[in-house]
């Protein structure tokens, strides 16, 4: 046998050879994927957005801003925010409840129920609006009764809220379901066995697990609630300054050959959507702090 010598630590190379972690793709794949997706998004999303902003600025900043400074525009902005503020919480609460029900219990006809939740997407927005008019319009039994008692639904704010809730209905639930399926229910069962109450289990076990999905679902829901046109246009009545949401006002202005005003408002709507996205980023940063604190058990 050879002499026992203390193995000298090998001198470190001047520039350590970069070892690829086993959980990463090769740099080439990464760059290709990044370029591919960024390029695709540029063609599909950024280019149209640029067009919108360019059209809005066609006559310069001042004209564009001035076109938004009237009562009509303001009431449209207010209305859209109000509708979103009403529709999104409703859908969030419903979404959590539905996803919980679907993933934590076993029952027959599950696929059927999920498909029911999906239905609002497959109905053309125009038809969705038509459905609401058929149900609540002055010529239907229910609608006639409500109108007679002083609560018109269609052609008033409640109708717009209902239409918005309808078209954004599936978002939260459908975001949550896959995540909750992925996680199974063992953690909840453990918590319950350890004596936690149902509410506590939900708050401390389920909610942290689904927060990402909840966040994305709410974001999608918000964006769509603000931008919805088809269904809302059928039930809104389009009264300037009263029941005209931002998308409807945009269409009206466009049809009036006021394209600067129309595109300015569209740009503003996009900007509003970006605010919710900024919120998301802030939340993400906060969450990831928590995450690094809790993730590595």
């Amino acid at each position, binding site marked *: 046998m050879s002499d026992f010598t203390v193995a000298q630590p090998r001198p470190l190379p001047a520039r350590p050879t970069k070892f690829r972690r086993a959980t990463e793709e090769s740099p080439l794949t990464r760059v290709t994927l990044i370029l591919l997706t960024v390029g695709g998004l540029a063609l599909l999303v950024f280019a149209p957005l640029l067009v919108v902003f360019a059209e809005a600025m066609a006559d310069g900043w001042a004209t564009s801003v001035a076109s938004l400074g009237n009562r009509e525009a303001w*009431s449209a902005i*207010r*209305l859209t*925010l*109000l509708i979103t*503020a*009403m529709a999104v*919480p*409703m859908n969030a*609460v419903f979404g959590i409840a539905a996803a919980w029900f679907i993933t934590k219990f076993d029952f027959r006809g599950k696929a059927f129920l999920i498909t029911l939740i999906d239905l609002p997407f497959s109905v053309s927005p125009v038809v969705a609006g038509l459905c609401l*008019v058929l149900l609540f*319009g*002055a*010529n239907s039994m229910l*609608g006639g009764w409500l*109108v007679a008692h*002083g*609560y*018109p*639904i*269609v*052609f*008033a*704010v*409640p109708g717009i*809220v209902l239409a918005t809730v309808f078209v954004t209905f599936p978002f939260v639930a459908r975001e949550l379901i896959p995540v909750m399926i992925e996680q199974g229910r063992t953690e909840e069962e453990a918590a319950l066995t350890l004596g936690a109450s149902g509410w506590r289990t939900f708050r401390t076990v389920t909610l942290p697990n689904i927060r990402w999905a909840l966040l994305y679902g709410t974001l999608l829901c918000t964006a769509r609630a603000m931008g919805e046109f088809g269904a809302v*246009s*059928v039930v809104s*009545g*389009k*009264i*300037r*300054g*009263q*029941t*005209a949401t931002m998308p409807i006002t945009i269409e*009206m202005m*466009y*049809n*009036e*050959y*006021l*394209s600067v005003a129309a595109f300015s408002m569209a740009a503003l709507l996009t900007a509003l959507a970006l605010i919710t996205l900024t919120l998301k980023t802030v939340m993400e940063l906060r969450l990831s702090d928590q995450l690094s604190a809790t993730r590595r058990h």
Partner: protein
Amino acid sequence: MLTKIAITNSAIAGRGTFAAMLHCSLPVVAIALMAATGAPGVARAQSLLNVSYDPTRELYRDINTAFTEKWVADGHDAASIETSHGGSGAQARAVIDGLGAQVVTLALASDIDKIAEAGKLPEDWQSKLPHNSSPYTSTIVFLVREGNPKGINDWGDLTQEGVEVITPNPKTSGGARWNYLAAWAWAEKNGKDPKEFLGQLFTHVPVLDTGARGATTTFAQRGIGDVLLAWENEAYLALEEIGDDQFDIVVPSVSILAEPPVAIVDANIADDAQRELATAYLDYLYTPEGQALAFKHFYRAWDESAAAPEDVARFPKLDLVTIDELGGWKKVQPEHFGDGGIFDQIYTAK
């Protein structure tokens, strides 16, 4: 008793609910829904909802201002006029389904006929006001590219080889029905088989937009087609927006008298005071001042006495066929544009 403005019951209630929403979320929603419904119309007496079509927004903005000033000057309390704009047919449907319009000002008499069929106003509404209840009219003209490179001067030129025509779909656009009927009228007057002529014409249409505005964009901004069939007032609006150095307006030898009618929706009138306001509002459209505003917004109105001369002078005289000469809307609508009607046959007949 006649209180001031009734603007936006819902918007005012809405602001309150919005604040409430920020504090606590869900239980409020139900209440908010109720609150936002708008308190049952107490203060409605002196407000009016005019349900109109695109693009009359600018016209009625001016009319509303001028009218409410005159109304107050005549010793009445202030009134608020709200307007709603959209496709003529969709607007008519909204009124049928309960949109509380006291006044409708739509693009086609047949749309108001539908509201009458639903029992909201008398069948003979069109005889209540002068000129078939149409305070202003328009016609169909051609918009061609600067200098008219394809030499398009009349309907017959549209079916020449290599000419592309842009018109919206008559099935979805009220305005496009006038386009179609104007072409029909020309063919009848010039001894052609109108059905065959229209069949040929639509083979020259590469894009059928759903609305007049979409068609204008396709023609003007996308550079598709050699000629756009458009309402005269919209053609002028388009020139104003896009620049009159790029396009010319060509007036054909024969066109149609497009009559956008107005009417009071009796079923939605709350009381006599509101009826008085609605009647005065529609009558105002026929006054020299109202007519002058219509001229200013590129409509052919009837009374030139108060209109600016240059607003009147821009309209060349031409042979205008009325819808009654073609049999009236009650006959024309189902025959040409109904399901399986002549327009559908153009596309389905092989």
